[in-house]
């Protein structure tokens, strides 16, 4: 790996993170003038964790203040907000965002005070927002199915109900970890949160049993169920499993519910690498090509590649960690990272499919124009959504992890 370049990319990523935080606290998903100039709780939470990793605690706190104040009356955090904190969603429930806000708040709290956590931790901030935390946990638990102890959602990380509507692994892992974080914060400020702890343990157990396939030796993506309260769920009109490989089947370890070295995780990641490492371009795809829903063409995603690099650091697979992280360093253009990369051939195939099917929305036209005008187009590559703040936040976390172990 080109280490000077890798370090420069880290420094530039920190700058990009700072530059893309609105004075009100929201981290743009992508800068104004690009595809996602809104604040998405999912991206925003990862940006907050990137800020924490880089030691930008004031920025992390400002980001949390913004999102905690934007909670909906029912306790949910919406799909996305404008810079004023107004709900600007256009998609249905994606409950992982609510789990992620709690999880990133927990990360902030644990990092506050540094080595002097007991004396200096920011308990005041947690107390100030405690009713928001309570409402968020209540909202998650209101969406938990009592038959299987899993949380129901319509969308999750890919915003793709066709494969995520039901009991989906990323949403469940995020929500479970979010409740555990709420338990830790509650205990630190003297609240009785034993009931939440029991509920989180039930969800965790269900993830490790119902969303794990011993014969495949892998976590699975989703138990498809249409209605969260179908009783029994076996009679639900969607009742089935999604067993295709998805990079977020790594979510139980990503959210710290199990150790990265847990055998279930190791074998899951093996399946992910074998099926989703892009053999033409390199980098980590998010799900199989035949799902055919990669706007801008099928190809590897930077933030998922960073997440997997971090996994390989944790399990001390130096070669694989370097393979993943160096791909990110090499794919960066002017030290900026795209959402994902495709080839021109795949880009045109996607465009043909979506045009013929009449499902190419107006909002995609700008993305198409920007991909074709990007300097990398001349190298045969389509850079989609450039830069994406989430990718830089995950790079900050992965590079920190890598450098603290190997440099």
């Amino acid at each position, binding site marked *: 790996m080109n280490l000077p370049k890798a370090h420069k990319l880290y420094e530039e990523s920190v700058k990009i993170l700072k530059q893309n935080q609105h004075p009100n606290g929201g981290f743009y998903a992508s800068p104004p003038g690009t595809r996602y100039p809104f604040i998405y709780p999912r991206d925003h939470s990862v940006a907050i964790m990137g800020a924490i990793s880089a030691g930008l605690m004031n920025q992390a706190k400002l980001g949390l203040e913004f999102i905690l104040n934007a909670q909906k009356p029912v306790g949910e955090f*919406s799909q996305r907000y404008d810079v004023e904190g*107004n709900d600007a969603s256009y998609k249905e429930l994606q409950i992982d965002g609510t789990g992620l806000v709690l999880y990133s708040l927990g990360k902030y709290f644990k990092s506050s005070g540094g080595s002097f956590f007991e004396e200096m931790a920011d308990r005041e901030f947690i107390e100030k927002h405690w009713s928001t935390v309570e409402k968020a946990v209540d909202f998650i638990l209101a969406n938990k199915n009592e038959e299987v102890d899993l949380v129901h959602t319509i969308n999750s990380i890919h915003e793709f109900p066709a494969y995520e509507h039901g009991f989906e692994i990323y949403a469940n892992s995020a929500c479970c970890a979010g409740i555990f974080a709420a338990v830790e914060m509650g205990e630190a400020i003297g609240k009785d949160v034993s009931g939440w702890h029991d509920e989180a343990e039930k969800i965790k157990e269900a993830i490790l049993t119902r969303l794990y396939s011993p014969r495949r030796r892998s976590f699975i993506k989703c138990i498809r169920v249409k209605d969260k309260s179908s009783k029994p769920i076996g009679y639900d009109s969607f009742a089935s499993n999604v067993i295709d490989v998805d990079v977020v089947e790594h979510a139980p370890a990503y959210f710290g519910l199990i150790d990265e070295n847990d055998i279930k995780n190791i074998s899951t990641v093996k399946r992910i690498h074998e099926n989703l490492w892009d053999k033409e371009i390199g980098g980590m795809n998010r799900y199989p090509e035949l799902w055919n829903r990669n706007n801008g063409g099928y190809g590897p995603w930077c933030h998922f590649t960073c997440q997997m690099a971090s996994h390989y650091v944790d399990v001390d697979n130096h070669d694989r960690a370097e393979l993943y992280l160096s791909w990110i360093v090499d794919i960066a253009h002017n030290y900026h990272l795209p959402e994902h990369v495709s080839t021109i051939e795949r880009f045109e195939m996607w465009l043909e499919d979506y045009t013929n099917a009449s499902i190419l929305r107006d909002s995609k036209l700008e993305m198409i124009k920007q991909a074709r005008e990007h300097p990398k187009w001349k190298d045969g590559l389509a850079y989609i959504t450039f830069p994406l703040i989430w990718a830089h936040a995950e790079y900050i976390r992965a590079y920190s992890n890598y450098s603290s172990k190997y440099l």
Partner: protein
Amino acid sequence: MLPKAFLLGIVEMVNIIGSEKTLEWLEDIARRLGDIEGGGIEGAREDDINYIPISPCTTDLVEFMDMFGEPEEFKKIIEYSNHKRDISDRGWEYPALTNILGVLHHWYSYRRAEITGIKLLNVGSKSPFTDEYVYNEKAMEKAGMTKEEVDRYLEKGYYVYKMEKIDN
């Protein structure tokens, strides 16, 4: 079953309490749903224009109308809403209605925007059944928009709103 039951319920309500009271009932439901959902503005934005690229709940209404046709009771509610708009000094706050669900959608959206400090002027709507354009002239006048300007957004959306900040 529930969407059909609700739509049939609207028909029954008009027969029991009349179109005026039924309109108020629907407006109240929409505002209460807006309160529960909280502040926000759905759909696409271009500067101070907000438009909804898809027509919400159309499938339910189409299925209902395939079975029952368009009930006279729905038309009476739309006529009464338009009448209220025409005689009101605040006619700009009423919807440009193409179908019964527009009542719910408008007052729900209006309330959610109001919570965030924004007034939504429904300058025009497009029928999801016939693609016919319908305007609220009073809203257009207050928004300072021409039909041609509204039409540009109706080509790509079903509900078009001008967003105005509410002065405290």
